[in-house]
């Protein structure tokens, strides 16, 4: 009986901490999406300089580790008088990192729309923004969604790194609770796995629904 009480107690505290993980996930994912779409579109810009600048950003953030980027933003930037709270630093680092990965997915998605579709839209005299909204975007997003869904899951798992700058997320709380009673280590980390898995599953099924919607009319 005591055991069940204890497990429940641990679970509740972990669920409480997972609120930080979830909000971090949502805010970072939204910002990462904005960054990915802007960068992905700029990677197709006709000006070479713009493409080069965005390409440089993408390569740097894909080519270095998220943890080091997080340390830079949280530990190094204060030396240049940019001091961010832990949560904000976490959001910025994660969004910049996953935004860079996803920019490539966005770019490929837009490129996948056949030029004949764009010509048909032009022949019907759509404005450029109508062309984007009604013709290009719905077809491009269908190609992007599976890749973006994968990035989403990676992002959720990536949020665990913020525990290393002391933000009290799911992982951080688990580590702290463990130091209170080493004997609970096993049960704590089993529960952590389950909670991460549950969060990922919820987001994954959200993406599956979006994919289904985007696939309407396709074989």
């Amino acid at each position, binding site marked *: 009986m005591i055991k069940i009480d204890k497990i429940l107690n641990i679970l509740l505290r972990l669920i409480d901490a997972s609120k930080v993980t979830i909000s971090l996930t949502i805010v970072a994912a939204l910002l990462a999406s904005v960054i990915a779409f802007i960068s992905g579109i700029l990677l197709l810009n006709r000006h070479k300089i713009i493409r080069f600048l965005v390409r440089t950003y993408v390569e740097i953030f894909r080519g270095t580790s998220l943890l080091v980027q997080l340390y830079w933003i949280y530990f190094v930037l204060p030396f240049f008088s940019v001091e961010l709270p832990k949560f904000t630093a976490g959001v910025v680092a994660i969004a910049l990192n996953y935004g860079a990965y996803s920019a490539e997915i966005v770019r490929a998605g837009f490129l996948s729309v056949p030029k*004949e*579709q764009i*010509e*048909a839209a*032009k*022949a*019907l*005299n*759509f*404005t*450029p923004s*109508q062309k984007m909204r*009604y*013709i290009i975007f*719905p*077809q491009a997003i*269908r190609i992007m969604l599976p890749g973006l869904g994968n990035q989403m899951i990676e992002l959720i798992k990536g949020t665990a790194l913020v525990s290393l700058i002391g933000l009290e997320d799911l992982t951080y709380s688990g580590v702290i609770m463990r130091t209170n009673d080493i004997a609970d280590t096993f049960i704590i980390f089993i529960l952590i796995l389950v909670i991460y898995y549950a969060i990922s599953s919820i987001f994954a099924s959200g993406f599956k629904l979006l994919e289904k919607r*985007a696939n*309407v*009319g*396709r*074989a």
Partner: protein
Amino acid sequence: MESADLIIKTARKSKIQKKDIKPEMIVHEGTLTTFDNPLVKYINVKKNFGELQVLKGIDLEVGYGEKLTIIGSSGSGKTTLIRMLMTLEKPSSGIMEIEGESLWTMKKNGKTVPADEAHLRKMRSKVGMVFQQYNLFPHMTVLDNCTIAPIKVKGMDPEEAKEQAIQMLKRVKMSDKINYYPNQLSGGQKQRVAIARAVLMRPKILLLDEVTSALDPEMVGEVLNVLNEIAQEEKEMTMIFVTHELDFAREISDRIIFINEGYILEQGKPESILNDPKSERLQAFLSRFKENRNL
């Protein structure tokens, strides 16, 4: 050595000269080729893709309500000629006009400047196009394919757009499939929807680029029948067909023009062009078709 050089030089020279001489355009008797008030006008229009000179000097007028067919061998520039009118391709030089107004330039503070997007959109609203590969929007139903542009581009009331679309889809015999998606349709059905979609925008000029060339043979007939009816009924609508269906062209066209090596070589009424070709090139072109038919 010297003589070899000379031969090469002369050969080069003659090649260039041959390119630059515009052949005399053969106009069959009784053919209307100029209009007091032409709907479309090409004046010495040229188009290159890099080194490749596709159109070398096109002069053409098209009248209101005229049904015009363009014939010519593959690669002769037929598609390029009409794509320029749809603003999908920009001429390298020359003047193009729709209703007397220049397509690619506009007046700004009394000066002639390159057309901006607003000018092109205004001009484009007079033109529509049906493509060889249908180019329906795969993420929309037949009905949405037909109503999206009237609603979004012309600002038509959605109910009104739907009603008109259903009427139009009846005319192309597709009204029983309004909730289907393009990939649930055969090629012939897709093309009939594409025709309906284009006509619903009520363009003054409808361009149709080999609309039956991508179809399986058994579907060509259904599409040509529908087109024939629409061509008969839409008296006001100018239609420019690019097609290899010569019997169809004979039946529906007011005039046929033959494009060869970047120029309009011959033009005239269908009977005359198809039965009594004057140039060797057109004779050869037509006899190739007759041979193919006999195969």
